[in-house]
């Protein structure tokens, strides 16, 4: 790696100050499971590395008025074993489990996964299907953002150089909402998603409401399959309707053709992923 300066502020305020002081030649480092790989392959120094791996202010999972707050520094391993996640948003456990391998999950954070913003990110679809919001702290204060606004493009978010992703909040009304995440990769572990997806819906009097279908790895960012959602919204959930929605979802995606899989194969996977996550969410709500 190219030489850089390393500072490890003790507090969140200290972090924001450090970011402001060294902008624009400053970068945040936490788990490093993606960023250190990048640093090993670039020829320019990042300048100053601000390490947030010990900041307690971005750790922890707790219930607050707005909903379930997950610190951006929470690792995938911590999510998998957290009782509140298990109770309120169990679909996130599957999503955390498929990230890399044990070693990756012990260091990698959910905040890091969101900020790195690769189209195939594993934590994106579930959070988007649950209407999660992110809290961003900068020198001018806090701001909240939906994930749709946060994800700008491949490896690009709306986070400025001098800002810190503080936490992710899953709205109170979506806690306990039946949801399911699925990932298709070429291997069971340490695999990039060919297609990943999450669905969430409420089933009341046999009709589904607030349907959310999020697709990953099939567009420049994680997207909502809104047309597929509207096929189901307010209707009785039958196998035929689920199949129809799954087919509509394919048209909303733009998967690539590459050495891992062809476009056609990914389209097939989209249909299967949407169908399975919807059926699973439906079963969870019984």
């Amino acid at each position, binding site marked *: *790696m*190219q*030489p*850089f*300066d*390393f500072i*490890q502020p003790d507090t969140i305020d200290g972090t924001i100050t450090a970011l402001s002081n060294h902008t624009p030649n400053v970068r945040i*480092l936490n*788990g*490093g*499971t993606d960023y*250190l*790989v990048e*640093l*090993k392959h670039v020829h320019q120094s990042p300048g100053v*590395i601000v*390490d947030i*791996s010990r900041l307690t202010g971005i750790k922890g999972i707790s219930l607050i008025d707005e909903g379930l707050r997950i610190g951006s520094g929470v690792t995938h*391993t911590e999510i998998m074993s957290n009782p509140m996640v298990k109770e309120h948003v169990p679909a996130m456990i599957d999503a955390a489990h498929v990230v*890399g*391998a*044990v*070693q*990756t999950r*012990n*260091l990698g954070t959910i905040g890091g996964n969101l900020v790195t913003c690769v189209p195939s990110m594993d934590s994106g679809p579930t959070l988007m299907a649950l209407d999660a919001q992110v809290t961003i702290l900068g020198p001018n204060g806090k701001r909240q953002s939906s994930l749709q606004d946060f994800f700008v493009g491949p490896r690009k978010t709306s986070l400025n150089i001098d800002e810190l992703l503080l936490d992710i909040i899953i709205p109170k009304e979506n806690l306990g909402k039946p949801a399911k995440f699925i990932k298709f990769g070429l291997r*069971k*572990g*340490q695999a990039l998603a060919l297609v990943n997806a999450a669905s969430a819906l409420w089933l009341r009097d046999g009709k589904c409401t607030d349907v959310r279908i999020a697709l990953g790895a099939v567009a420049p960012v994680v997207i909502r399959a809104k047309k597929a959602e509207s096929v189901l919204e307010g209707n009785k959930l039958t196998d035929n309707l689920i199949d129809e929605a799954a087919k509509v979802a394919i048209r909303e995606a733009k998967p690539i053709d590459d050495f891992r899989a062809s476009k056609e194969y990914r389209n097939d996977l989209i249909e299967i992923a949407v169908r399975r996550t919807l059926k699973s969410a439906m079963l969870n709500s019984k």
Partner: protein
Amino acid sequence: MTDITLNVNGEVKTASVPPETTLLKMLREDLNFTGAKIGCDVGDCGACTVLVDGLAVNACLMLAAQANGKEVLTIEGLSTLDKYHPIQKAFEDVAALQCGFCGPGMIMATKALIDQEQELTRDQIKDALSGNLCRCTGYTKIIDGVIDAYEKITGRKVPARNPRAA
């Protein structure tokens, strides 16, 4: 240069290294613990697995500065003069390793798994070791070694392999 202090294998060690030094480089070159290996340097192969504060991590993806003040356990820290660690003994008894390069990483990942003290199935073992690649053995004997060690350390049994299952 920054001064890094680590508790490695029960001993306090200090070295002065450039900030961009990974924990792996510091262990291998500054502290002479060459057990953890450089297989890919990007966190894919697991040959550099060590335990930091009890968690299995890829040492190539952690800056030495991030590990400052932490407890690091490497393969060299498992055995003592009098006692050969049961995982290493199990691996030797079942001949789990061939070229041995993946060995330190596998054994450290195994230690992290067994330390968690939960009921284990063969599938869970495979999942826990999925971050450690091996090109020589095809993994079968390694898993046998893990099961042998687990059964000796915890006294519990792992359900037998179903030959029809994958």
